């Protein structure tokens, strides 16, 4: 479809294994809705978009909500720096995701699904439209799907237009409604008041891709992978200073050290887990586990070796947030600017510790006072990098290695 893009999958245990398109839908339609929810619950699948909310609970809430219309939305806005696993899934395993949406539509009682595809991925659009048409021809979409009387479901693709915050589920819904992509107050949650006021489930691409496998193999079998609190496998997008960047499907619970060995990373100084809004893990903590109960992540892993300057990394992240803040609430709009200014002061050696400490407090305030996840998590790299790399940033001599 696109000859400049190489989708490198280094390890795959489940998601990219053989899957016959449509088989998940057929099996699901033989089951009752309650049985599907039961299997999902047994699988302990949690959202792969970052927040980690149990998928069975989300679907159950929408299934139980009353309303003439209900919607299922596939969140393909993948904008977190360092994440590209959804791109690889969409390009290499589209039917897994689409089948997951159909199963979701059946389970929650939705008649329509949307794929919100980030504007940068517009090159995939025709390919995905072709996939949808293929499904329509096979009656995997449309009316009375696979002969199931009364189950009508179709999917359309809507493009984003270059706004990171639209990955936040309520901003995404605003965008679909033709509004500025400004996050809403929550509650009410989309499961009650979502797209055009109707009960709506928003799910990450990877979450939906796991569903057909869970239906086919059973929830308990799926939950055998990973740890007790983080079941199943997870796609990690590995980038930065390593020999083998790309997508890895690994079981939850792997330590950062083990991961670094796999991807051929040497002289590693720091690993940023969870993208720009995640946290930076220094070498001394590389024995921590990637799992919801330890270091949670939507899958972005960025590796920095000894030659990188952490202040430069931090500045890049803060510039990102200043640009991408929707500007709706003050802690995030002004706070990120102040944190960036602080980084620039350190860069120019024009800071006082009193001021830096004030900024750290500001960061803590932003975490609680911001309206959405963007402003709540944007101080993370500021706080973690200034704390864990303070020697490099504040103590090194100007003619030292960390110039």
């Amino acid at each position, binding site marked *: 479809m*696109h000859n*400049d*893009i*190489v989708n*490198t999958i280094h390890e795959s245990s489940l998601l990219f294994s053989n899957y016959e398109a449509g088989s998940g839908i057929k099996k699901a339609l033989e089951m009752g809705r309650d049985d599907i929810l039961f299997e999902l619950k047994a699988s302990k699948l949690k959202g792969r978009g970052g927040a980690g909310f149990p998928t069975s609970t989300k679907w159950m809430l929408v299934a139980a909500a009353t309303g003439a219309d209900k919607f299922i939305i596939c969140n393909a806005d*993948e*904008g*977190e*720096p*360092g*994440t*590209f696993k*959804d*791109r690889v899934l969409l390009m290499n395993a589209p039917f897994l995701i689409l089948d997951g949406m159909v199963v979701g539509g059946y389970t929650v009682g939705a008649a329509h699904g949307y794929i919100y595809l*980030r*504007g*940068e*991925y*517009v*090159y995939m659009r025709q390919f995905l439209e072709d996939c949808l048409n293929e499904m329509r021809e096979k009656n995997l979409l449309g009316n009375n799907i696979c002969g199931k009387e009364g189950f009508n479901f179709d999917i359309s693709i*809507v*493009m*984003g*237009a*270059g*706004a*990171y915050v639209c990955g936040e589920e309520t901003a995404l819904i605003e*965008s*679909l*409604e*033709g*509004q*500025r*992509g*400004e996050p809403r107050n929550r509650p009410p949650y989309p499961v009650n008041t979502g797209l*055009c006021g109707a009960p709506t489930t928003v799910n990450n691409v990877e979450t939906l891709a796991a569903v057909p496998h869970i239906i086919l193999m059973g929830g308990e079998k799926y939950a055998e992978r990973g740890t007790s609190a983080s079941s199943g496998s997870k796609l990690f*997008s*590995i*980038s*930065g*200073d390593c020999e083998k*960047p*790309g*997508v890895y499907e690994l079981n939850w619970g792997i330590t950062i050290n083990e991961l670094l060995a796999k991807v051929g990373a040497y002289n590693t100084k720091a690993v940023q887990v969870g993208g*720009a809004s995640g946290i930076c893990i220094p070498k001394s903590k590389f024995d921590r586990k990637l799992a919801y109960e330890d270091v949670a992540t939507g899958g972005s892993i*960025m590796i*920095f070796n000894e030659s*990188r300057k952490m202040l430069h*990394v931090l500045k*890049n*992240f803060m*510039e*990102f947030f200043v*640009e*991408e803040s*929707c500007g709706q609430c003050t802690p995030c709009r002004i706070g990120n600017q102040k944190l960036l200014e602080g980084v620039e002061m350190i860069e120019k050696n024009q800071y006082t510790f009193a001021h830096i400490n004030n900024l750290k407090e500001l960061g803590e305030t932003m975490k609680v006072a911001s309206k959405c996840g963007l402003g709540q998590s944007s101080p993370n790299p500021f706080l973690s990098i200034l704390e864990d790399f303070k020697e490099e940033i504040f103590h090194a001599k100007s003619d030292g290695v960390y110039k």
Partner: protein
Amino acid sequence: MLVLEKNNLTEEIELFASQYDFHRTALMPLLEYIQEKYHHIPDFAQQEVARVLDIHPVEVYGVISFYSFLNDQPKGRNIVRLCRTIICDMAGKCQIEQAIERELGLKFGETSKDQKITLEFTNCLGMCDQGPAMIVNDRVYTKLDPEKACAILKEIK
């Protein structure tokens, strides 16, 4: 815009919106359609979109100003977006930026006088395992080096 062009545009907008029963959910796809065809969303189009969807023109403008891929001022026929996020930065984004600026005699953030090309930075394109990366219009280019990047931009019309 000529009267004839205006009439055409109005017709296009009406036809497009009718597929959505003139519901507001038509707004984003409609704006993207106009943007793609005219490379920006002119005042006249904004007013027509507002009229057809029965909303205030300011609402239309508010939406355009929010999204970085939508713009009300003309940009180049070709838009180059180079990823500035950390992984591409580490992979050599600065060298590419400088090479392109030298080759085209144009700075990032600017549009060439002949309206042929606009240079912009963008955030992570989801190509971090094969950076440095850029998008030219809808097409992604990966594993850039200064020479390759300049050759790509020489090709575009």
